[in-house]
């Protein structure tokens, strides 16, 4: 726990104010309904044979939408200081880079080497 108090204030007022603008219960419930609908779509898409050729992009779009909704509204990135968005999005980009790099590198490996 942090327990330091400095003797003078210098934080920009708008930053402090931004903290208190979280949504209320009604908006949270709306988001929950949207998330439920998206999940139903996801599962539905999985079972519909005709959509199998576009299954991967569809699922990724739906998952990305859910991911974004939770991050923006439940985790308040849409309302809070942008510093928090940066703290999340930069590592997320790096994580995506690692994921894609390893998949590509091992795809090459499995096609060219026994190991």
């Amino acid at each position: 726990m942090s327990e330091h108090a400095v003797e003078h204030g210098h934080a920009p007022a708008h930053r402090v104010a931004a903290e208190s603008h979280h949504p209320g219960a009604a908006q949270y419930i709306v988001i929950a309904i949207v998330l439920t609908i998206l999940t139903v779509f996801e599962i539905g898409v999985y079972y519909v044979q005709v959509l199998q050729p576009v299954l991967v992009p569809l699922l990724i779009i739906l998952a990305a939408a859910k991911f974004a909704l939770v991050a923006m509204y439940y985790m308040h990135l849409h309302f809070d200081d942008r510093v928090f968005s940066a703290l999340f999005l930069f590592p997320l980009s790096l994580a995506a880079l690692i994921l894609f790099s390893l998949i590509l590198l091992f795809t090459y490996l499995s096609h060219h080497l026994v190991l």
Partner: protein
Amino acid sequence: MAAQPKAIPIERASYLEGGGIYGWLTTIDHKRIAVLYAVTAIVMMAFGGIEAMLVRTQLMYPENNFLSAHTYNQFFTMHGLTMIFLVIMPLETGFFGNFLIPLQIGARDVAFPRLNALSYWIFLLGALTMNFGWIWGGLPNDGWFGYANLTERMYSPGLNIDFYDIGLLILGVSSVMSALNFFVTIVNMRAPGMTFMRMPMFIWSLLVTVILILLAFPALTVGLIFLFMDRYFDTHYYRVIAGASPILWQHLFWIFGHPEVYIMILPAFGMISEVLPVFSRKALFGYPMMAYSMILIAFLSYGVWGHHMFATGMGPVADATFSITSMLIAIPTGIKIFSWIATMWGGRLRFTTAYLFAIAFVLQFTIGGLSGVMHASPPIDLEQTDSYIIVAHFHYVLGLGALFAILAAFYYYWPKITGRLLNEKLGKWHFWLSVWSFNATFFPMHFLGELGMPRRIYTYAPNMGWDFWNKWETLNAYVIAVSFILFFINIYLSLTSGERASSDPWDARTLEWSVPSPPPEYNFAAVPTVISRDAFWVTKYGSVEAPGSDTGPPMTAPALVDLSKIHIPAPSLYPVFIALGLFGMGVGMIISWYRMVLIGAALLVMSAIAMCFEYPNWGEENEHMVAESFLGLDHRKVGIWSFIGSETVFFASLISTYMVYKSRSMGPFDAQILNIPLTSFSTFVLLTSSLLMVLALAAFQRNDKFWGTFWLLGTAFFGCIFLGGQVYEFGDFWLEHGMLFNSNLFSQCFYTLVGFHGFHVFIGVVWLIVMAIAGIRGKIDSRRALSVEMAGLYWHFVDIVWVVIFTLIYLMRTVKGA
């Protein structure tokens, strides 16, 4: 819940005075913790140095029998591990970082003082775990890189690799905790007016370094967890026979390992950037470019890991990509070198020992950097890899580079840390002996490499043409030892009879020199307001470019403030208990004493909960802290987001492995057994729990304690349902499909990934229940809503990780993977 701690008195003049041994055990003062890091790292340096001497003695003659091959492997491995993880990193980040960050940014301590103490004690016990093999079972013996599959139980049946694996896991926990703490401190606790472009360059270097630690260590952690699974649960993460690839370890290790190189060298850059301007009596040349190049180096360092793996056959596209990014790093590094030279150019130079070490760093690091550029080229690298040229390269970068920078900073900051001066005459003897002996030891390694001597061999035939240089290097390595003996004598003489230092003995430029030497416990009587870069210099002379005075700094009047109003946080013993718990778990696991594991776990959990509630105002919104922080944000919230950022890399590494291995696996396959209806239900449950979590937060924010507690319990309940579903699913796979943890690549990756997510859910449930109990007892109200928000952020993160897992692992089960 612990008794309410009392604030300690602040009348003490120096942070070093008072408290006795108990005071040092329970300290949470960043300066004392820095000293603890320094003492530990110097003891470890002695160990690492002795190991190096033994290794060199073995190589002195061809076909030497001084050490057996097995013992040699242990010593060269421990030398590398010790110097990297137990000397250079703790000295740069733990010692100088701890001591200087608050002093240079004008703060009274770090953001989370208890976490800081915890980091140190975990570091100490991690170091002991790594060295436990001296008395039981043998030291790590597979190189600091621990290449798979030599680390597998079938090739390394002893405990050596277990000490490596679990020791590094524990040290990683310490490093990430420190990094998180320093990140929040630098970002949010700077003195008024200290914008990013006014920060001392050492602070810049540490800011970038801790970001690297936060985002690089998780990949190593995942690699080490896989190794742990292979050794303890007979999985096949690195076993070719099961379709796995040992190359996976290399990727995970070097995704961490190359940023690790910059974790060691960037603080060195920062230290040099502090020393050179002071003794050149000029402002640092090209400050903005110096800062931007540091950022660019860090950014690029994530895209260069493959240059350690050219010999594994990654293919022309990957080779070219990693080669280009590796070569690009030379540009920002070159900018720094030219800026240091330009800083010295035209200055009024004072050749103190600190300055000499700094100049030597610039020259010698450049030599190491140039051979580094060569290795960025795949054809050249293929010839030189695993030869002594590589040994020469990294000793120039880290031995003559990072270590010389540490020595420069040591001579420079010693008066501030201890209040006494080091003997300059002895210091210069130390310097010249070091320059001679380090260069005489490591430069000929280039020749040996060109003559074909491979690294890591414990002996060689007499007719290889390597005899002379090996004997020469060994003799000069002994001279390195002599130079360090002089250094330690100098330290001893300074501590016992050294000349007293003034607060500003070097006529320095940054804020730490404006406080007494050694500093008082509270650092600054009045927190300074910064109006310019080189804040202290400007206070003394009026402008950054002012020439200064040959007769020393002008006197500055002490600030008159009421010291009794300064709050100093109380000490705590819990960090020691938590670290002991972790140590007990680690060592108990290695030596198969499972009672010790359980006792360690219990000690850890109980101490952690007790530490969280140690403060009577735990979780309370601290309006002063928020309003007075640099960004106007709560430290804890910045901290939890930084932690979540680090966790994304952890899960990305786990998910990557699943994706890579699933198509290599032999049956049963994911498409045959994954239960979509069950996990769809689990997904709804977890999403619903997230709704309840935000409803709990909203209730507490409007001071509705009943509904806040109700929704918290509801969230925990849904979390339990989710966990129950997972237990059912695992049981079903086991009983119905016979899929054990180590049945095939799919099963081990699945159980590990989903299991780790489940473990995160479990931690979240425990957190929520603890919060709910506090809510039932009426301890949570709108002023403590932040503590609910923190738990919520963690919970939602676990939720979005599941969103990814559900899609990639379950719904895409029929999609052919990589």
